[in-house]
């Protein structure tokens, strides 16, 4: 990578999405634009397991809504049951834009909702803004 990064705060982000391509693009985007470190998981249960690793506890979780098996909202509710993970802010990433869906997600108690297709150049900024990160 040729770009120099001025970012000094190290962030660890967990991306949970069943689409390999989206995980890769999102990870590249956050690494390249913000210099964050990324771990990924391709399903809800894998995501819970990754988040519960005490040695690599993520600062935030970016999670898809529609996933086969356990979907985003269900995974989120299970995370809330686990005191190890419950404190980690979760952002849902959705391809649905209907107002009804948005309200439903907000009612869940997630930290925010971001929309697909996201802009790879501003995704990190959107996450920072939603979580109130100043760096």
């Amino acid at each position: 990578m040729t770009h120099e990064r001025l970012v000094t705060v190290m962030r660890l982000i967990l991306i949970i999405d069943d689409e390999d391509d989206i995980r890769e693009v999102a990870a590249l985007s956050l690494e390249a634009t913000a210099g964050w470190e990324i771990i990924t998981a391709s399903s809800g249960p894998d995501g819970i397991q990754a988040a519960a690793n005490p040695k690599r506890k993520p600062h935030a979780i970016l999670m898809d809504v529609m996933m086969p098996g356990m979907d985003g909202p269900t995974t989120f509710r299970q995370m809330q049951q686990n005191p190890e993970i419950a404190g980690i802010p979760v952002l849902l990433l959705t391809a649905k834009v209907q107002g009804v869906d948005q309200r439903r997600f907000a009612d869940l108690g997630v930290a925010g909702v971001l929309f697909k297709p996201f802009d790879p150049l501003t995704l990190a900024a959107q996450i920072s803004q939603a979580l109130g990160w100043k760096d």
Partner: protein
Amino acid sequence: MTSLPSILVGMLLLSIFLLGALTLRLAAKARQQHRSIEQLNEALKRSREYAEQQQTKLALRSDLDSVKDEFISTVSHELRTPLTSIRGALGLLSAGLLGNVDAKAQNLLRIASSNTERLIRLINDILDLERMESGRAALKLRRCSIQDLAREAVDTMAPMAEGVGIHLELICNAPRETIYFDADPDRILQVITNLLSNAIKFSPAGTTVSVQIDSDTNSVLLKVVDHGRGIPADKLEVVFGRFQQVEASDASKKGGTGLGLAICRSIIQQHGGAIWAQPNVSGLGTTLWVQLSRSARASDTALPSLIGAPGERGEGLILVCDDDAGIREVVAEQLRQHGYDILQAGSGEEVLAIAGEQAAKARSKASVHPVSAILLDLYMPGLSGWETLQRLKESPATKAIPVVILSVIPSSDRTLLASEAQGWVQKPFNENLLLAELGRVLRAKGMPGHILLVEQDQELAKEILAGFREAGVPMDHASTLQQAVDRCLLGPPDLLILDVMLPDGDGFSLVDWLRRQPGLHALPLVVYSSREISQAEMARLRLGPTHFFDKAKVKPREVEERVLTMVSRLRNNSPAAIVA
């Protein structure tokens, strides 16, 4: 001489005969009553069956709606998912974040990127339009200022305009107290922004795009005027269709989706307003007009003078006609709650019968009121709404009853609106818009004709205006051609007094323009001019019933008398009778 017994026998026979006749009549009456009861039972059964059918139909419709909703939502999700990967990959590559790419590859990446963005906009627009047209995107109405919304839109679009060297300006001609209106601010902002974006896209660098605001007691009017290449006359209406652009190549060149104006029209119509395009009077560029009613609901802000706030109690007997019993009942209940008395009709035939009958009863009995207004559906089995409307207007007993169309058809068909029906509410309707429109129509009923004076001489205009004010006839004044056009579009007058000489054109261009306007082409006209008018010119100035007066020979007072006679005929008869 007849003997007593024979008289007695005669009387007895007569009694028997009378008794027999009476018995027969009673029996016949009983049979008749039995028949009517049977008929009533039959009618009751039929209406119960009908109501059940309608219930099923409604349930089916709502099932279909939710299936369609689900489908659209799924499709848009399925399309967005691969687009997320494409957009992400292209975005990162073309930004050079993953290493530099050479110029040729960079150009290809730019093309792929910008077309991805276009595809995303397209999907968003389709979804938007579908939700609005299905009537499921509810408006969040509140009191807003048209000036503030226009300012916000201009600020939003300023960077785009600056980038291509176009100057944006905002002109507010509306008095402070009439810039407030009821609307969903986000939606109206979307419309103004979209109109500005179009105007900027199709204007050459160095020109000005101007947003102008006008208003009167009942409506706000917003114009976006550009000096671009203009829209050909045959495309003025077409551009509001889906995927319709003036040039087939516009979508790819200008990056639009071809749905922008369709969405704008959808939003404006949902607000009960109108939007249309017109070439500028100068011949260069286009003006997009948006007209919105100011009072869509009871005012909850400090504007007590707001005329026509449906918060006020309604009064009058309203005949509600729709072949769908469910809709009819909903409308009836809403109107009842606002103080109206209701009659219902399930067909055009019933409307004619009930309105006629009610008029006849009202003539003979002071306690019975005639129908004050009719709410009429257009698509009905049997006599259609259009035919019903025509028959109502043909009958002397019912032609004065104002009719408000309640239809899925948008009010953009202004020909019908202006010529026969007095009001229009689009289904699925908003209760407040329905009440506002009904209130407006009921208030307008029986009001003296509305006159527009087009006169550049301010002194003379003052004199004429004063005369009509004394006579209690409302009159508007326009001193330029442009003002006259604006006035006509804000609210068509019932009669026009016209000076041929105008500072920015002449009376001929105004008449030419009026002739092309549906609903205005047959306007009664009084030409009051200081200049000799030849026979040939008279032919060019003729509109509806037309009279010519020479300023040198006829005093304003006399013109006023003639016009007042025309107005009173207009009030009592159809416009055609004015010539007599």
